[in-house]
């Protein structure tokens, strides 16, 4: 993860807590740039040996570039040795409009480009807005803040705040204090040419491979369920050599024992005292996030009240101690492939589809939890927790190509198994899996 804070006035001072939470997310290099009275701060998490400090001045265009996330366009690997920063610089230098450059990107990102000549900041988010970004505006003194975490907006007086949703292209002009553009980055063809189950499998593997870290080990927190199970088994098959960690107390134990035999999963024992220590760390170092703002039907109101956040923190912390900087998350599988239901039966009260997908997807697109709802809430749990540890969370199930493929799968593929293609592939590969949905609750089965 990286983090950034933009203030429309260099005179705005970031408070200590906001500074720290942003710094934890990008612990390897901090740079502050000021141009024309605007302030740009970027904290970098260096995932490769060499890194380019941001914000970056692209003098030929008069741009200042800073971003959070990873670009997966094939050219990044083929021609830039995995250096997505160099790729972005060249792309912006050689593309006439910022919007056109953003539209060509595949990845998990929030990218910001400030044009010195126009005094405006263009922001693009990926399809599911995997990376957090907040905009705050104070009308009392015409000040703006655009930042990774909401806490940076505390420095503004009586500011109106909002998150930029996924798949957006937004341009804000600071001379006139106006939003010049606010539109989707991509348009969907929900009923496009029909894809097949094997297309989906191929794209799933591709989504894993392109997200694998170039240096260092990959961490996969594994449960006894479908999503992390499929990720773990395919990563092993593809030779990505992940470190697999699980808190066994929360999971279906027979399934986990079989997975341990087959994959070599390490079990993390979570005692009551360890849980308490992790909870303390979560409360002190992880920025809170309201779940119920996006999905009022959730029982847990916010990240700080979520035992799952404590469990995730414990697993990621252990992974970090083992040298991992990148972790794969199964986030999005529930929201996209089942919406917490199966064959018309709701498995959780947040479900709106009850796992039933019509032949004409336009009828339901987009359902509540697809981009908002639990998607937003749980994505931000992953982001905030991993960010507090200076780790990067990546989301294979939120791959754009994979998602587009799912949309155009025949309805029978979507509906015949629990979680459609995920369930079918789990079954075909003979992966042991818990048949009932347990959810990730780290305070279950604690040892004394």
């Amino acid at each position, binding site marked *: 993860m990286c983090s950034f804070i933009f203030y429309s006035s260099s005179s705005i001072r970031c408070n200590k807590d906001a500074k720290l939470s942003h710094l934890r997310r990008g612990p390897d290099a901090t740079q*502050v740039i000021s141009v*024309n*009275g605007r302030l740009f701060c970027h904290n970098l998490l260096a995932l490769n040996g060499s890194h380019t400090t941001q914000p970056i001045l692209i*003098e030929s265009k008069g741009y200042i570039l800073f971003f959070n996330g990873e670009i997966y366009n094939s050219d990044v690997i083929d021609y830039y040795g995995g250096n997505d920063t160099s790729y972005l610089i060249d792309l912006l230098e050689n593309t006439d409009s910022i919007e056109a450059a953003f539209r060509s990107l595949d990845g998990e990102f929030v990218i910001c480009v400030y044009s010195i*000549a126009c005094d405006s900041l263009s922001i693009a988010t990926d399809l599911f807005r995997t990376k957090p970004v907040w905009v705050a505006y104070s009308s009392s003194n015409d*000040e703006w803040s655009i930042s990774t975490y909401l806490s940076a907006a505390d420095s503004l007086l009586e500011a109106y705040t909002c998150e930029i949703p996924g798949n957006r292209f937004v341009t804000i002009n600071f001379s006139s204090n106006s939003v010049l553009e606010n539109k989707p980055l991509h348009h969907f063809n929900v009923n496009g040419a029909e894809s097949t189950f094997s297309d989906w499998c191929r794209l799933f593997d591709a989504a894993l491979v392109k997200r694998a870290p170039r240096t260092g080990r990959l961490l996969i927190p594994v449960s006894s369920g479908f999503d992390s199970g499929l990720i773990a088994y395919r990563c092993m098959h593809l030779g990505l050599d992940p470190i697999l960690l699980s808190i066994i107390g929360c999971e279906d134990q027979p399934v986990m024992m079989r997975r341990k035999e087959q994959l070599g999963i390490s079990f993390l024992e979570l005692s009551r005292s360890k849980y308490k220590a992790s909870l303390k760390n979560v409360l002190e170092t992880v920025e809170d996030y309201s779940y119920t703002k996006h999905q009022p039907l959730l029982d847990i109101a916010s990240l700080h009240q979520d035992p799952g956040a404590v469990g995730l923190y414990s697993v990621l912390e252990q992974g970090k101690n083992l040298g991992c900087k990148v972790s794969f998350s199964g986030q999005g599988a529930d929201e996209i492939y089942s919406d917490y239901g199966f064959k018309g039966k709701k498995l959780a009260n947040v479900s709106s589809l009850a796992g039933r997908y019509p032949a004409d997807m336009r009828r339901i697109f987009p359902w509540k939890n697809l981009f908002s709802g639990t998607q937003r809430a749980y994505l931000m749990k992953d982001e905030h927790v991993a960010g507090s540890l200076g780790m990067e969370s990546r989301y294979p199930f939120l791959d754009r190509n994979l998602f587009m493929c799912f949309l155009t799968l025949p309805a029978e593929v979507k509906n015949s198994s629990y979680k459609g293609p995920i369930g079918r592939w789990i079954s075909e590969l003979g992966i042991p899996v818990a048949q009932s949905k347990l959810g990730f609750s780290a305070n279950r089965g604690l040892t004394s």
Partner: protein
Amino acid sequence: MKILRHIMPQEAKIAGIRSVEKDMSATFYDEIKEAANTSHLPIKPRGYIFFQPGDSHDPALLKSYLSSLIIRIGDLHHLQNPLLKTIDFVESVSSLTEGIYLNTNPSLLPFFKYLFPICQNMPISELTIEEGILNEARKLNASASANRKRRRIAYIGSGNSPYHPRRSYWLNSLIKDYSETIDLEILPSMNPKEWLHTCLMYSSVFSPSLNSQWSHNLFIPALVGTKIFTDSQSLPLYSYYTTALRRKSSPCSYASSLDSLVKKLLLYCDSSAQTYHKIAMNACAALEPAGVTSSRVYENPLLNSNIPRNNLSQKNTDEFIRFVIAANIFEILQEIARIMVTYDMFTVSFKTSAFFAELSTYFHHPRLAYRKSGESSAGKDMAVIFVEGKPTKNMLPARLVTINVDLSLLSHRSIQLSSRTFDPRKISTYELAQRMLSSIVGNNYQPVVFTQRLLEIVEVDY
């Protein structure tokens, strides 16, 4: 009726040929000095001063002679120690005036307003926008003749002014390399009314900033809907157009580099017709609330908002001392940007945090990027600032100067001017940049260089 007198410094070499505003009687400062010493006037006149560093005015004398005083400050961009001299001047007159208006780049306002809350911005000079000119523009727009324009790009003024090397470089590059594709027409200087009628005949003008200041020539084309091409140093002229209009017809286009200017001009030459009439009505409407104040001063409230206020009770505090040092550093940076025109951008890197906050908050310049990468553990008593030219098609990246400030010597004495100067001609790449400039503007072209005196505490390594 009270008469507003324009008070001019008779002996000031730089200001000697300044023209006097229409309907405004002029008085030389020396005449006031003589009158003040010899007689007491029954009715005291109101006074109006256009101040630029180099002008000499005795505030005490002005106070005894005038009933009220308005000061406009401008042309701070190419003189020796313009900021330090302006601080001195404003400090001495701020309690005597009705208003101090900065007719400079708006980016300097935060600094002056912080030190002297009485300062305001005056983006539209009454030298340019005469009292009747807004009405005349409105009449011309109403006749819709603005929609019958020639698709040519007009430029007004000198093509090789030694005071404005960047403008000369850009203009002559366009003439030399793009005369086949960009239809540019060079026009002689003219008064605002003539310029208004001339703009009516052109679809667009090329009007770069004067170093880091707004060009007076920018305001007239806005009034009749003529599209403006300028450089990023003219920001934020956008305030005159509505958001919707800007999105639709981009009435004002800013370029960060010569390359981007050329691309914008070429694209424009190929693009469809502009909605001149709308642009013009919009600019007139935006200027409407500004109007003419009782003091004959135009102002735009948009540009005066959001300015930090000072809480300095005494001017000899550490904070004031740091501000003065930052101003001296900015004088160096500004002169580098003015002279080294073949670089588009400069990075100013701070080895420690010292002066980053002051410079980034109060001394804005679109071609200067202040950069701080974290505090170094050693040398906290020294502020070390590297100035680098960013590479362009013709220039390699280069470290231009290093500015050092010994923080252990911080005192009121340290902000006295020394006999040492910063001379941009000592920069290692100056000769190279100068050769390139001459090859474009003309073999005999020599930009005027203003050495900047350094404070006792400030040192420059080349």
